[in-house]
């Protein structure tokens, strides 16, 4: 039996995704180094070194945290020029969220190392934990799916590694759903604490964030069911192979 073009095509997709992801992450790891060198060069050539220069047109990234509930209005603090602006240096805003998980997003714009250092440690840890969870889960799941489809292109349909990989991917995706929502809820609590420390008061604070990524749970559970089907198929295949 020859593997279908569809399986070969899916394998190529996962193969490209896997190596593409690795390339993007390697480039992303190099980015802070490039920014650091750019800052150093600006400082040496007499430009306005530090975050002021960076903020006016340099590379910037942002850490965002959901804030669900209702903030007391007006959102403007006495010494801040913009509505919803918590701080100018570093720039921290409360923005209206586009999705339905939370009405607000607490956004820290990071343009320099000084900006980064002013963010509370708990928020940094939660923000980057979320990112690492996403990168790690996606990379691991892609790797396993790539290997699974490679085995399928070799016409190995029912074998122990295939159903095991399928099961592991199922658990990764299901685990991602739960871990992501746990981190989001912890971030939500930390964001409210940060806002309270900055003098913002809520009319009403939502006790927890309801997940909006149910698709991950369904995908994970479906893969777990598929894994059981592959496991049964593997048992049948073994029976067939050992029938003389």
């Amino acid at each position, binding site marked *: 039996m020859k593997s279908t073009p569809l399986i070969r095509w899916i394998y190529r997709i996962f193969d490209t995704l896997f190596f593409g992801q690795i390339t993007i992450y390697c480039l992303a790891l190099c980015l802070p180094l490039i920014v650091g060198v750019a800052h150093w060069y600006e400082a040496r050539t007499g430009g306005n070194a530090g975050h002021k220069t960076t903020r006016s047109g340099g590379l910037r990234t942002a850490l965002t945290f959901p804030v669900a509930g209702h903030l007391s209005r007006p959102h403007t603090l006495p010494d801040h020029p913009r509505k919803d602006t918590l701080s100018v240096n570093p720039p921290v805003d409360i923005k209206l969220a586009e999705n339905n998980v939370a009405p607000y997003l607490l956004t820290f714009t990071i343009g320099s190392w000084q900006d980064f250092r002013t963010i509370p440690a708990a928020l940094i840890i939660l923000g980057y934990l979320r990112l690492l969870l996403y990168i790690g889960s996606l990379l691991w799941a892609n790797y396993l799916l790539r290997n699974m489809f490679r085995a399928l292109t070799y016409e190995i349909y029912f074998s122990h590694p295939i159903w095991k990989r399928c099961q592991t991917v199922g658990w990764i995706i299901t685990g991602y759903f739960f871990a992501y929502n746990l981190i989001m809820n912890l971030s939500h609590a930390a964001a409210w604490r940060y806002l309270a420390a900055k003098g913002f008061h809520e009319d009403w604070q939502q006790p927890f964030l309801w997940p909006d990524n149910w698709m991950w749970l369904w995908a994970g559970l479906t893969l777990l069911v598929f894994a059981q089907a592959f496991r049964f198929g593997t048992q049948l295949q*073994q*029976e067939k192979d*050992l*029938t*003389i």
Partner: protein
Amino acid sequence: MPIVVNVDVMMARRKMSLTELSEKVGITMANLSILKTGKARAIRFETLEALCEALDCQPGDLLEYQRE
């Protein structure tokens, strides 16, 4: 498994080698080896028939039930 396949006993009685039996029965050496080592989960009637014919014996001579 309490079912024991006595192919090797019958082969020794008939003074037949594994290669010779494999050629006569038309099954691979690997599958005959699975039968001899007791790893087989099932045996087809047609294989049993071919073995009985090649070894000139009855199915009862090839299969034995042993209590565990």
